[in-house]
């Protein structure tokens, strides 16, 4: 993919990741990062796109695999509803997944290059394997 990095007055370096049309309507795509967990892009019924870390605050489920509603994505592991706009879990569940800045320009989806490189690098991926209790 040809990525265009532009510099603006705000000094945000926006990096183009895909076209809006590359994300299914009411669906999601994953964006790999040089380090850290992927970012999940969600497309609502219109042209709106939201970006969250691909990790449910509950047990780390990949949100990009969930069912996308108008305002929430439903985590595929235990059905927590996570707000697309800010990553907050819907009450009474408590938790928040990091959100990423995201904008749509002329049908293209742009993310903040610095955030992609540096934001939420410390959150671990969920693991499987032999069961450990307690």
């Amino acid at each position, binding site marked *: 993919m040809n990525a265009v990095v532009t510099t603006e007055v705000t000094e945000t370096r926006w990096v183009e990741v895909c076209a809006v049309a590359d994300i299914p*309507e009411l669906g999601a795509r994953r*964006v790999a990062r040089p380090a850290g967990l992927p970012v999940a*892009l969600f497309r609502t019924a219109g042209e709106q796109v939201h970006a969250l870390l691909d990790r449910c605050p509950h*047990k780390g489920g990949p949100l990009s*695999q969930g*069912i996308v509603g108008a305002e*929430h994505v439903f985590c595929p592991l235990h059905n927590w*509803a996570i707000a697309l706009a800010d990553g907050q879990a819907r009450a009474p569940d408590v938790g928040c997944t990091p959100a990423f800045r995201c904008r749509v320009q002329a049908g293209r989806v742009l993310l903040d290059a610095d955030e992609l*490189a540096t934001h939420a690098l410390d959150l671990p991926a969920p693991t499987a394997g032999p069961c450990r209790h307690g």
Partner: protein
Amino acid sequence: MLQALRPPQPRQRLVLVGNGMAGVRTLEELLKIAPELYDITVFGAEPHPNYNRILLSPVLAGEQTLDEIVLNPLAWYAEHGITLHTGKAITRIDRVKRVVEAADGTTAPYDRLLLATGSLPFILPIPGKDLPGVIGYRDIADTQAMIDAAAQYRHAVVIGGGLLGLEAANGLAKRGMQVTVVHLMPWLMERQLDETAGRLLQQSLAQRGIRFEMGVQTEALIPDAAGRVMAVRFKDGREIPADLVVMAAGIRPHTALAASAGLLCERGVVVTDTLQTVTDPRIYAVGECAAHRGIAYGLVAPLFEQAKVCATHLAQFGIGRYTGSAVSTKLKVTGIDLFSAGHFMGGEGTEQIVLSDPVGGVYKKLVLKDDKLVGAVLYGDTVDGSWYFKLLRQGRPVADIRDKLMFGESSLGDTGHAGVNKAAALADSDEVCGCNGVTKGAICKAIKAQGLFTLDDVRKHTKASASCGSCTGLVEQLLMTVAGGDYSAAPKTKAMCGCTDHGHQAVRDAIQANHWLTIDQVYRGMDWRTPNGCASCRPAINYYLLSTWPKEAKDDPQSRFINERSHANIQKDGTYSVIPRMWGGETTASELRRIADVVDKYRIPTVKVTGGQRIDMLGVKKEDLPAVWKDLAMPSGHAYAKALRTVKTCVGSEWCRFGTQDSTQMGKDLERALWRMYAPHKVKLAVSGCPRNCAESGIKDVGVIGVDSGWELYVGGNGGIKTEVAQFLCKVKTPDEVLEYSGAFLQLYRLEGWYLERTCHYIARVGLDHVKKKILDDADGRRALWEQLQFALDGEPDPWFEFEKAQVDLRQFAPIQPAITVEQGA
């Protein structure tokens, strides 16, 4: 410019008369959906904020304090900008000027008025009823008066052996008084219990030192020299000492205020399905003071349901109708478990099933009429109360489960809590919900701290009973002890999810009737509350569309759960498991070699043999899925889908010295005929070659057992949360008949089952007789169903290979790799 100068539109004014549970609950529901719509003013006759009236009995018994039962502290009113007038009873409503006036002269104008004045104790019209020491039992003041009296006096008489009277008697006895209950009828709680249960109850209360005067009428209350009550005189002339008399002979809706304002009152303030008074559409009434279709409800669950509907109308959404509630009673006298519902007395045309163990303290009576459960009384063991109540509301025929009925749902092989049926017997650290690891202590704490009222509340906050649901009865018992009851309203139809009030059947019917082909048509046609639904309703509707209109409705992959979108089974770490199909559980050296090669090539960490006679590869990266499928070159096992899973077989007559039929071939034929069949839930089959039943046909959705003269078909078995033994459907002669009958049954289930309803639950809902009528009695209908299924499955793609036809979005497998140039030091 003129517009800019105009002052902001003043908010509408809502006045609530009656600061109790029904009224304040309505405000809470309203604030949830329209927090800014009204300036709210509340008048309460009592000097307290809203408290849980049901818990006055534990307060009286010294088990809880007044502070603990407050539901909405004063700060709650302040926080929501509500003007609260406590200790001010409204005495007048001026409907023309739209103003209410309190006894002290305080007035408040309203645009909308909500009446929730509750009820008053019925005071027997006998001489001495106004003496000091004679009280009703309704509020904190009454409770306090009883607590004070218990500290000073010795003899208490409670008139009325109903729930309220017995709770009062129990509390007063606990506080050291000598209590006598006077009851006009021959046994206690005659409106909720039959004679046997009433007598058992009397016995155990008598053991606690309470005395009873049964079938006795009170004539007068006698004062002492100081003018305080000192004795009760009966019609037969006897007198018993009484320093305190509690009148608990019933309640009456408090309608005096409404009546004086000219509002139509019959048994209560008459309201419509929108909870508006029939006389004045600006005035609403909820709770015990309201009469809806002739009924004034006295239990909290219906009141909460009314509150919800009323709030939507106050919020001007104009949706929601209250159509009445079915009610059951769980009774709360500490240490005594009682449940009753429906027509528990029986009578003309009814039959009874009774279990009576007086020494063990258990009594259960089920009343049936026309093959349906119409009433139940449980004493001593109430864990199945909610199950009976469900059967009663559904009105489903019970002939097929009649022999098991008495032993309850929990006797049908409940797993996960080792058959415990009494929450009281558990320690705080004991696990109630085995699925989510929730202890009794955690549930009780959440109920108290979060102010939870309903089963749904508890499920949302603690997850207890939210997964498999087999501990529901225990959670309800905990709600009973901690919150004073489970206030879950029991609407006649259960809503599909939070996005709608419609139930599954209504949605299915509408899709059929309107020939709807898209989810959007359903959402618009049925006034969905959310534009794009949720993870519960979207997959369900997608399935209903596809099963109702095969080859017409178009599948929407984004409305499918991830497993059916990526055609593999998501694991806790976000990887997937892959299970290829092995027809009838048979495999070959070449398939096993390919599997081994795939495991090596893609470094798959775990390989496991499944219960369905296949091989599961666990821990496959999503990126690798298409390549894994290609290398395996085996059909999709649909082990991830609400669809036909496996057909388990034994080796049958081909090899087995006991085999009577070729079960392996039968299994392979069934699997080839039915694979790619989506259904309301997963579907598992088994074929055994003889009655030794090595393929475990008895716990499958369709189980086939070969016998010398043909094949026996069983349906509705389940080895899951509740082990359900499959029920005998019929016996057939030929393999073709096995296909036709099994296929027709599954097609019936596909058309009539609700999403996520296994065949056992589907049959439990519609009754096996219904299934037999459609499959056995109606040969043309059966063949038509079998043909419909073949039509629907014809040309269905294998999603592991025919990506386009199966609408598999290949973009999902690989992540986007943006070319990020990280500028060092930028």
